[in-house]
């Protein structure tokens, strides 16, 4: 595959690379990450994305890109509205999978020996693992309200969380245009009882210590201080979102011929955003996104309740939400003079300082972005920079990015052994599944420092703080 350097950190497969490509495929990476990226078929998948009808600019990949299905994970594709396509696979099965960060009013040193108690309390309170869990039980009508109006419904009607949490959530915790009527009964059945649950796979709640501040002004705006304890929540729309994607991939796959669309991979199945299938999916996807924000909102409430139990009422009340970001979603956005539908699959919005969509406290700092490392390694808080609007449709990476298959990770280490190693490093671990733990071993991921370094040097975002894990509840 011909790959040319546009600069030190941006590589391009030209649109002439294949007959069916409509735009170039570009990846942000340094030489070492590029070698990892070339080891799997993610760049071929990115070329496939470049064939989507209506795609503009380039099919973009972040330095944490790895092979997925249809879209690679870590990809951005913007299509022109109204007639460019929407691709459910370009959002992914876990619609609005994302990350929420809370900051506690205590320092790690003060928490000390109570860390284990707090992790244990989180594990006890927040349902983790597979399937229908012990989440919030909502009536059908209440679920519809959540699907339509997002996290605000939990504040106003159920006394869960605060209005300040909602303000400090991407899109205010609500995508407009959501229509619960566009969800199948099967999607509702899968989501039933799963609101306020972590799930499995790479989802987690992690307690961290602010290890280092890189940008004091932005850290202050985000409420972060050196040594403080933070709680990071990584989860999404659970079975409800998975089913929405399943339903619409199938529906659009069956309608490809009618729309005259030919694709190199069926998982890219798509339809014009303005078509009946496109409009229905966008309304269902928005509902699933609202479910996901409500899911993380409910878990944040549980984090506060755990804090209350271990550290008291004052500490619970003073636990503030920094922000909440989505990294699997498609959003209508204006870039330059164009209205676009920006698909981010394993990629995070990162708007620069001054953007009107940012909450007032963050407006001078830029959008807060959270980049979880792998279990046992640092995570980063970043702030969006103007380069993101110029180069990546306002987007950065979403994590370290897998480099090793789950099967291979399990062959390399037993879950029990990994648990012992993490605990030897002072990290309290709670997980129902040793197998799941092994699959998420740190060596199965790329070097998060290197990934973050690339997006910073490329001008997409800047480091604000480094967070070190002190406890993890693994889904």
């Amino acid at each position: 595959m011909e790959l040319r350097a546009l600069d030190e950190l941006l590589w391009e497969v030209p649109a002439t690379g294949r007959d069916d490509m409509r735009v170039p495929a570009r990846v942000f990476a340094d030489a070492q990450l590029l070698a990892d990226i070339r080891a799997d078929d993610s760049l071929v998948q990115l070329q496939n994305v470049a064939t989507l009808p209506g795609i503009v600019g380039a099919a973009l990949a972040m330095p944490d890109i790895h092979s997925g299905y249809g879209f690679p994970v870590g990809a951005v594709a913007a299509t022109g509205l109204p007639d460019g396509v929407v691709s459910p696979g370009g959002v992914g099965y876990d619609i609005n999978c994302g990350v929420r960060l809370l900051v506690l009013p205590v320092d790690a040193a003060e928490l000390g020996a109570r860390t284990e108690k707090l992790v244990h309390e989180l594990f006890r309170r927040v349902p983790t693992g597979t399937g229908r869990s012990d989440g919030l039980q909502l009536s059908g009508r209440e679920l519809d309200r959540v699907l339509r109006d997002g996290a605000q419904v939990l504040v106003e009607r159920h006394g869960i969380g605060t209005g300040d949490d909602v303000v400090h959530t991407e899109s205010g915790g609500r995508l407009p245009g959501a229509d619960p009527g566009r969800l199948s009964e099967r999607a509702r059945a899968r989501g039933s009882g799963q609101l306020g649950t972590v799930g499995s796979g790479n989802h987690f709640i992690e307690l961290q210590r602010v290890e280092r501040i890189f940008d004091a002004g932005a850290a202050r705006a985000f409420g972060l201080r050196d040594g403080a304890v933070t709680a990071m929540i990584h989860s999404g729309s659970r079975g409800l979102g998975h089913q929405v994607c399943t339903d619409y991939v199938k529906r659009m796959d069956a309608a490809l011929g009618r729309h005259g669309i030919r694709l190199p991979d069926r998982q890219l199945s798509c339809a014009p955003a303005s078509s009946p299938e496109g409009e229905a999916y966008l309304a269902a996807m928005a509902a699933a996104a609202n479910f996901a924000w409500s899911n993380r909102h409910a878990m944040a409430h549980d984090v506060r309740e755990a804090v209350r139990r271990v550290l008291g009422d004052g500490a619970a009340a003073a636990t503030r939400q920094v922000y909440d970001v989505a990294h699997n979603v498609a959003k209508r956005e204006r870039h330059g003079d164009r209205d676009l539908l920006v698909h981010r699959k394993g990629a995070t919005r990162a708007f620069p300082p001054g953007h009107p969509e940012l909450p007032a406290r963050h407006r001078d700092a830029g959008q807060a972005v959270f980049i979880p490392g792998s279990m046992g390694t640092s995570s980063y808080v970043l702030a969006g920079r103007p380069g993101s609007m110029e180069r990546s449709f306002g987007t950065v990476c979403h994590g370290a990015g897998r480099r090793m298959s789950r099967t291979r990770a399990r062959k390399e280490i037993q879950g029990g052994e990994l648990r012992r190693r993490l605990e030897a490093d002072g990290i309290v671990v709670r997980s129902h599944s040793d197998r799941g733990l092994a699959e998420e071993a740190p060596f199965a991921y790329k070097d998060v420092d290197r990934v973050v370094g690339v997006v910073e040097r490329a001008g997409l975002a800047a480091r604000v703080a480094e967070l070190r894990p002190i406890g993890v509840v693994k889904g």
Partner: protein
Amino acid sequence: MHGWDEHTGELQLWVTAPTEPEVFGEALRAVAEILSENGPPAAPGRELREIALEAGDRGVLLADWIGELAFLAETDAFVPDSLEALELAGKGLRARVRGHFGRPPHLVKAVTYHDLRFERTDDGWRAQVVLDV
């Protein structure tokens, strides 16, 4: 026969069998393998589920089949043990599955169409599907 190919993020399942219905039976065994951390139960369970599906082609029918088994595990805690009967007719299938109630530690979140294959070979049939886990 079935096995798993390396995939960075997910699970890629391949299945070979002498006949088309046996592809579906083998896929059921692969799903049971994912759902059971401690291997198959000593004796098949007593629960039975009837499944009827239709799809535009055999590849999608296989994806729907795995998706149905995953749905039953997620919403009903039904873990499949064995295939009692399976009949392919036209674009659909009808099947009866024996299983047990359990709390699977791992689930299939979704069945993708990425590199989805259901092909005749010299020895019978070969299928391939990538599962989001």
